[in-house]
């Protein structure tokens, strides 16, 4: 079932920068889709258009089954520094006056491994923990679609891998569709069911590829020829896209 379809999305900013030059893409319910491409290729712009935070100049964004609850995770943790962890996690629920906001936020924090940190302030947490709060906040409202804009780019490799695994597990448990923007070939190869490679600005879809599903996604998977092959295909497609643009 198609959750989302984009047709010929284009966006030029007021300063004349043509960010997105006609992106057509459909996203299936429950899939983990990565959007990869060089910096400044309009990946984030596509994500913000999907979220409804930006209006495209041309093209259409359609949700055939109706607009789902959307969660958004930014590159920065983007927490309210004046609010404790639990108040941050329950923000989306509070904004819509959900009656059980406290319990649902606490449950979401427990799922990302932050039980016991509810009363901490963001500045007391490490970068990885802040990102976990940001994910808990996105999950607390029970999204069907999770949009993630290079969420782990600023983290060290070990933290990033731990968060990759937790994200996969949580998304699968809840049956969440994820659109994940990254410029890391390995991260996209590890996480994705499908990878969409974009060209340089103005961003267009250069290639799409389904990755063969591994039996398990864990540390062992990174050592398999299958993983290396997936990463190789993505790399090659990105190199091709760069050549076309140049």
């Amino acid at each position: 079932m198609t959750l989302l379809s984009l047709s010929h999305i284009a966006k030029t900013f007021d300063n004349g920068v043509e960010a997105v030059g006609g992106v057509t893409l459909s996203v299936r319910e429950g899939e983990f889709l990565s959007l990869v491409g060089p910096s400044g290729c309009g990946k984030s712009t596509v994500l913000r258009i999907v979220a409804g935070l930006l209006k495209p100049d041309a093209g259409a964004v359609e949700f055939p089954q109706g607009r789902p609850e959307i969660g958004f995770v930014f590159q920065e943790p983007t927490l309210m520094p004046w609010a404790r962890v639990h108040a941050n996690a329950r923000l989306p629920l509070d904004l819509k006056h959900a009656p059980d906001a406290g319990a649902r936020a606490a449950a979401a924090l427990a799922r990302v491994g932050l039980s016991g940190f509810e009363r901490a302030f963001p500045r007391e947490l490490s970068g990885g923990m802040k990102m976990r709060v940001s994910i808990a906040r996105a999950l607390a409202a029970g999204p069907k679609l999770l949009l993630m804009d290079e969420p782990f780019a600023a983290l060290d490799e070990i933290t990033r891998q731990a968060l990759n695994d937790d994200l996969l597990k949580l998304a699968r448990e809840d049956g969440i569709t994820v659109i994940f923007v990254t410029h890391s070939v390995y991260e996209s190869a590890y996480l994705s069911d499908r990878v969409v490679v974009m060209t340089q600005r103005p961003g267009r879809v250069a290639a799409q590829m389904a990755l063969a599903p591994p039996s398990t996604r864990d540390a062992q998977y990174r050592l398999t020829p299958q993983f290396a092959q997936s990463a190789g295909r993505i790399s090659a497609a990105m190199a091709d896209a760069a050549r076309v643009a140049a």
Partner: protein
Amino acid sequence: MNALRIVIPLALGVAAIALWQFLVRHYGVAEYLLPAPSAIWPGFTESFAELMSALWTTLQVTWLAFFFAFAGAMLLAIVFNLSRTVEMALFPYAVVLQVTPMVSIAPLILIWVGYERVEAAAVLIATIVAFFPILSNATLGLRAADANLNDLFRLHGASRWQRLVRLQLPAALPYILSGVKVAGGLALIGAIVAEFVAGSGTATGLGWVITETGRNLQIAKMFAALALLSAVGVANFYLLTFVEWLLLHRWHESAIKTQN
């Protein structure tokens, strides 16, 4: 280190007062020019009741003006934030009011309010002086919220009120508080300026005590009033700094750093 921070300036103060005492006595300076510290104390105790009542008047004027300035400036800053048109229309006039020296407008305000109500005029003058730093800082602060947080609020369908209360006001708090600290000092200056300008009438605050003692060459009493005035200024400043610390120290970097 912390102890030295208190001990060093205190020692300097004591030394300066001792030197002052010595020089005045040694050279026999006339008391109506510069009284020795030992002569100021009687000036203080002899007029204790009068000084305390003047102090109380000045405090009332200062705090009332501070309260009006805070409430008015916050309200106007929020209106500016809600309507760019109102901000464009009014902000230049707020600047005009700010850059025109208050001493020069004070006589006019006194005439309008009336010399028989100097305190009311003083409250008005002090309010105008204290208004601008809160207005400009709050206006700036209300625009300072993180852009991504703003997007998050939009994504989750926050109302204008929710965005103001849950995002913009907390984000503006550090800005507002630094404006408030400046305004606290200015409110006191405004209160004194009003009484200086009035010169007579029904004024009974510390500003009036200073004018009167100057005319009568009661310099010891004048020094006592001056000392009280700086004590009030210092107390106000530390009170507001403490409030700032209370509100910010848990989460804001500036407050965390200034703790040392």
